[in-house]
């Protein structure tokens, strides 16, 4: 009997679901609004003229953003005959996005150059100790560089879509530009997969060290050691690195989701939502590139001893003491810190 009751419950649930789906489908196919009654006109003979109450394009355009009807070909999206919004998106892609991208990226470059000229490279103030400790494992570095390589190619091929036409096309001519853009498009589409995978793995492996904490507030108040020569204590990732982490995770998720919506057109989207997806994709990606420029700066010429963390994976103990003192303490408590650098093995004399 228990199974019978179960079947009844299942049937009731199924019927309820069908009603919901049918209701949603009806709402989507709701007909265009009927014309206003005052448009009814009479023929000279006095009979109602059915053609006089015809749908008028002007009325529909005033009420709807998309004029659609019923067609007889399988391609359902062809039933939308007119959506003037396409004209607006053109302005975003050709004007607005270029301004956002140019200001964000060139502005960031200007800031970094200016900062480098004023501050110079942040040195290890106490000098190198000659002893190192492991900061990133081989797996962590692999994930970082896989994501980073994909990001650089995605960024260049993406910027090509927005800026290539005015900047590169006049230089290399239409045929070469098309050949390059075609390859850039393939690279952009296919490398999105390892990039997304990298973002997911980054999210998982470093989440534990990227929860904002009290030390971050203090670190930010003291300028993070970037502004000035202070060395506020920081755990494995300081507040700035945590910001980069969350920008990568959230920004990466945003560009991945919107990118896949554009890559698979009409899977749950229509023209308007694909335009919106492109708007989000473009803006987030432009800001993402600007932030990553700062990330690259601080990881290379901006700070002595920083690159080797992602290069060899080992950092100098004095670097760790100045920039990540809390992390160094933890590592020393575990007995990991302070390995002298491997020396060339002395061959026994024979």
């Amino acid at each position, binding site marked *: 009997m228990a199974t019978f009751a179960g079947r009844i419950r299942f049937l009731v649930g199924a019927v309820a679901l069908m009603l919901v789906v049918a209701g949603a489908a009806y709402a989507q196919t709701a*007909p*265009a609004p*009927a014309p206003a009654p005052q448009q009814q*006109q009479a023929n000279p003979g006095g009979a109602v003229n*059915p*053609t*006089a*109450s*015809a*749908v*008028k*394009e*002007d009325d*529909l*355009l005033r009420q709807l953003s998309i004029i*659609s*009807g*019923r*067609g*007889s*070909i399988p*391609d359902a*999206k*062809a*039933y*939308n*005959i*007119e*959506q*003037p*919004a*396409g*004209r607006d*998106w*053109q302005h975003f*892609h*050709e004007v607005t996005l270029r301004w956002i991208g140019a200001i964000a990226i060139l502005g960031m470059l200007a800031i970094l150059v200016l900062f480098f000229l004023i501050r110079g490279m942040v040195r290890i103030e106490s000098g190198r100790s000659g002893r190192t400790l492991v900061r990133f494992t081989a797996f962590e570095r692999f994930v970082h560089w896989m994501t980073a390589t994909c990001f650089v190619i995605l960024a260049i091929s993406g910027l*090509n*879509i927005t800026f*290539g*036409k005015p900047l590169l*096309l006049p230089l290399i001519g*239409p*045929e070469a*530009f*098309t050949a390059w*853009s*075609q390859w850039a*498009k*393939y690279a952009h589409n*296919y490398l999105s997969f390892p990039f997304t995978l990298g973002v997911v793995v980054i999210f998982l492996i470093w989440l534990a060290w990227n929860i904002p904490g009290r030390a971050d507030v203090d670190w930010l108040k003291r300028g993070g050691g970037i502004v000035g020569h202070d060395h506020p204590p920081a755990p494995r990732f300081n507040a700035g690195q945590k910001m980069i982490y969350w920008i990568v995770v959230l920004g990466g998720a945003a560009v991945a989701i919107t990118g896949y919506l*554009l*890559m*698979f*057109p*009409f*899977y749950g989207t229509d*023209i308007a939502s*694909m335009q919106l997806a*492109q708007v989000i994709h473009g803006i987030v990606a432009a800001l993402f590139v600007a932030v990553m420029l700062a990330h690259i700066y601080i990881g290379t010429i901006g700070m002595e001893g920083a690159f080797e963390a992602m290069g060899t994976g080992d950092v100098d103990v004095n670097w760790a003491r100045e920039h990540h003192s809390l992390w160094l303490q933890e590592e020393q408590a575990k007995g990991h810190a302070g390995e002298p650098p491997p020396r060339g093995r002395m061959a026994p004399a024979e």
Partner: protein
Amino acid sequence: MARMKFLCDADRCIECNACVTACKNEHEVPWGINRRRVVTINDGKPGERSVTMACMHCTEAPCAAVCPVNCFYTTADAVVLHSKDLCIGCGYCFYACPFGAPQYPRVGNFGSRGKMDKCTYCAGGPEADGSKEEYEKYGANRLAEGKLPLCAEMCSTKSLLAGDGEIIAQIYKERVVKRGYGSGAWGWKTAYRETIAS
């Protein structure tokens, strides 16, 4: 030079789909691609109207504006054409087109949608007029032979008009005055930023 336009007088369209068929046959358009289609609005209700729609060859065409590789060009007759040799199949023109004109041979196939295809106003492409290459990529070039687009030429009710914008607008105006009503020149406000008083 003329400024070529399409005008669909929806009060005359009988949804026979002959324009669609003629287009497919004239240009040997492959399966799944519809350069022109007929859509019925308020189907089955009083005042129902059918409209045939294809590329409207817009003034300041949005597809051309957003194309990242500049594969579009406008002819002396104001027909908006594109080069399939330059198209990279990114799909941006489809996001921008108010009329859903651009078509892709492999819609939904990520990475490669194939080269975009759309109505050419029976004016072919950048290749030599009437050449084999032009026909294979874009279909017939009737304009170069002094003929108008076949869809409009064979429309049995002369609902679909093609030709110089001023002349077809004049024909439509006269019809509206004579019969006393008109549902509007569909797409003209969006494509050409002008309306025909009706």
